[in-house]
C-alpha cells in the first residue's frame, strides 16, 4: 500500500507505457558483445561530461580525460581567449599521446603555454595549431596548417564541460540535455567550488552501479548498519517511497522528501552528527542561496530532500536541499569493470566549523559508497552465472528499468543504421 500519491495510471512505471512492467534482463551488463556495441552506439554518440569550468581557472589550464570505452583520450584546455576547447590527445606526427605524465593511462592536469610532444618535440598552441616542428626542413611538403590537433566537439552548460566524440554530433548539447535537465539553469553551481573528489575501480558493469544510485529502495536495508539501530529499524519498517519520478528522453530524475535530522530523537542520530551538525544529507546549516530554478524540487516537497538527475549515459547531478551537490561519473573499462568518480561540491567554508561539517558529509558519503561498491561486485558475479536471467523491478526502481531500455534502444538504433549501409 503506497503512502504517497502516484500518477493516474496507478504507478510511475505505467505512466510511461513504453517501459512495460515485465521482468528485466541484465544481459546488457554481462555481455562482452553488448559492451563492444556500446563503444560506438553510446559513447561515441552521446554528449559526455568530462568536468567543470572551475577545473580550468585560467588561460593555459588543462586536464586530460581518459575515455577508455571509446579508446580515446581527450585534452580539455582554457584557450587564449578564455574559451574551453577539447582535442583528441594525439600528436599529429607519429601518433604519440600528447599530454600525459609518467604513466600513459593516467589522467593529468596542469597549466602550460603550449603543448609539447615528449617524442619529437612538436609543439601546439592552446588553439590546437601546430606551431613548431623539430627539423622542419627534413620533412616533405609539410604545411603546419594541415597538422593542428584534431578538435573534439566541446560545449559548456551551467559550467559543466561536455564533449562529443562523433564527427558530427546528432544534436547540440542543449537539445541533447532537453527541458527537464536545462530547467536547472540558474542553480548556483558556480558558487560551490569547494570540491572533494573521489575515485574507485569497481568490478561491475557501469549500468549496475548507476542502478544502485538511482533507486533508494535499497537504502533502509543495505545501509541499515550506517545508522543507530533505532533509526534503522524505523527506516526498514516504513520502507522507501519517492514522491516524484520523471523521464525526459534518455534522461531521468528522482526527487525525494527530506528528513529533518535535528528534529529526530537524539538516539536516532550519531553523536558526531550532533556536534558537527552534519551527516549524509550534508550540513544542517546550509548556505543562503536565494531563489531556486524551476527544475529543482519539481514535486514541491516540503521538507524536500534531494533531486537526483541521471543524465544519459553516465553522469549524475545530485542536488541536496541543504545547499550542496554531488556528481557521479561511471567510465566503463570493460564489460564488467568501470572507474567511478564522485565529486562533492560545497560553497567554500568560511570557517573551521563549516569545513568540519563538510568533512563529516564527505566521510559519511564514502562509508555508504564502500557498501554499494562491495554489493555491486557480488551482483556482477551472480548475474554472470546466468542461473537467473530475468528480474522483477518494482515501481521505485523505474529509473533502473528506463536506463536499461535506453541502452538497448541506442544500441538497436546504431545497429539498424549500420546494417542498412
Amino acid at each position, binding site marked *: 500500500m503506497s503512502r504517497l500519491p502516484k500518477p493516474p495510471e496507478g504507478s510511475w512505471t505505467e505512466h510511461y507505457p513504453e517501459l512495460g512492467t515485465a521482468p528485466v534482463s541484465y544481459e546488457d551488463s554481462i555481455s562482452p558483445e553488448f559492451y563492444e556495441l556500446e563503444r560506438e552506439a553510446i559513447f561515441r554518440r552521446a554528449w559526455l561530461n568530462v568536468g567543470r569550468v572551475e577545473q580550468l581557472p585560467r588561460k593555459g589550464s588543462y586536464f586530460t580525460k581518459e575515455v577508455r570505452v571509446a579508446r580515446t583520450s581527450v585534452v580539455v584546455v582554457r584557450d587564449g581567449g578564455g574559451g574551453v576547447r577539447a582535442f583528441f590527445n594525439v600528436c599529429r606526427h607519429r601518433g604519440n599521446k600528447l599530454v600525459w605524465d609518467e604513466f600513459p593511462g593516467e589522467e593529468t592536469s596542469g597549466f602550460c603555454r603550449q603543448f609539447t610532444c615528449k617524442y619529437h618535440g612538436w609543439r601546439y598552441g592552446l588553439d590546437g595549431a601546430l606551431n613548431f616542428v623539430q627539423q622542419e626542413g627534413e620533412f616533405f611538403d609539410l604545411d603546419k596548417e594541415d597538422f593542428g590537433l584534431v578538435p573534439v566537439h566541446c560545449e559548456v552548460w551551467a559550467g559543466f564541460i561536455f564533449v562529443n566524440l562523433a564527427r558530427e554530433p546528432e544534436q547540440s548539447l542543449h537539445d541533447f540535455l532537453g527541458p527537464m535537465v536545462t530547467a536547472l539553469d540558474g542553480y548556483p553551481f558556480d558558487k560551490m567550488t569547494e*570540491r572533494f573528489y573521489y575515485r574507485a575501480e569497481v568490478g561491475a558493469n557501469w549500468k549496475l552501479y548507476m542502478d544502485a544510485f538511482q533507486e533508494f529502495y535499497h537504502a533502509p536495508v543495505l545501509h541499515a548498519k550506517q545508522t543507530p539501530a533505532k533509526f534503522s529499524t524505523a527506516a526498514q519498517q516504513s520502507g522507501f517511497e519517492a514522491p516524484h519520478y520523471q523521464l525526459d528522453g534518455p534522461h531521468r530524475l528522482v526527487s525525494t522528501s527530506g528528513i529533518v535530522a535535528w528534529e529526530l530523537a537524539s538516539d536516532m542520530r550519531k553523536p558526531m552528527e550532533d556536534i558537527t551538525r552534519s551527516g549524509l544529507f550534508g550540513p544542517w546549516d546550509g548556505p543562503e542561496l536565494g531563489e531556486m530554478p524551476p527544475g529543482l524540487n519539481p514535486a514541491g516537497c516540503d521538507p524536500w530532500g534531494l533531486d537526483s538527475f541521471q543524465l544519459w549515459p553516465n553522469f549524475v547531478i545530485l542536488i541536496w536541499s541543504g545547499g550542496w551537490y554531488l556528481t557521479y561519473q561511471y567510465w566503463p573499462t570493460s564489460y564488467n569493470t568501470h572507474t567511478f568518480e564522485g565529486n562533492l561540491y560545497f560553497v567554500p567554508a568560511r570557517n573551521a566549523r563549516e569545513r568540519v561539517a563538510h568533512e563529516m558529509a564527505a566521510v559519511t558519503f564514502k562509508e555508504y559508497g564502500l557498501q554499494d561498491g562491495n554489493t555491486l561486485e557480488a551482483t556482477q558475479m551472480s548475474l554472470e552465472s546466468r542461473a537467473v536471467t530475468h528480474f522483477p523491478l518494482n515501481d521505485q526502481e523505474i529509473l533502473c528499468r528506463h536506463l536499461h531500455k535506453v541502452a538497448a534502444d541506442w544500441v538497436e538504433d546504431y545497429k539498424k543504421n549500420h546494417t542498412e549501409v
Partner: protein
Amino acid sequence: MTDRLLPAGFAELEPFAGTWCLATETERYARRMASSMEEMRTFYDAFFPRLEEAVAHCDTFPLDALPEDARRLLQLVYSLVMVSMSIEIFHQPKAVDAADAEIERVREPVP
C-alpha cells in the same frame, strides 16, 4: 621553546597528536584501517568531550590563516570524524559489508 604540537589548552591530547594529526583523508583512512578498536576508543573517549571546544578554538582564526598548532588541531578533528564511523556505528575499523571495497579521495580542500 616547547615541542608541543597542539594549542596550549589541549595538552591532554598531545599523546594522540603524533598519530592522528594527518593532513589528508587518505592518511587518516589508512591509519583507521591500521588501528585496533581499543586504540581508536581511547582516542575517541579522550577527544570527543572536547570536540566542541576544539572547533571553537580553530574558529578564532581565519580558516586560511590558521597557526600551525590550530591547523594540527583541525586535522585531529578530521581524524575524530574518521574514527567516529568505527566507534559509533560499525564497531570495527572498516564499514560493515564493505569487505575490500576501496574509494580513494584524490583531491580535497586545504586545510
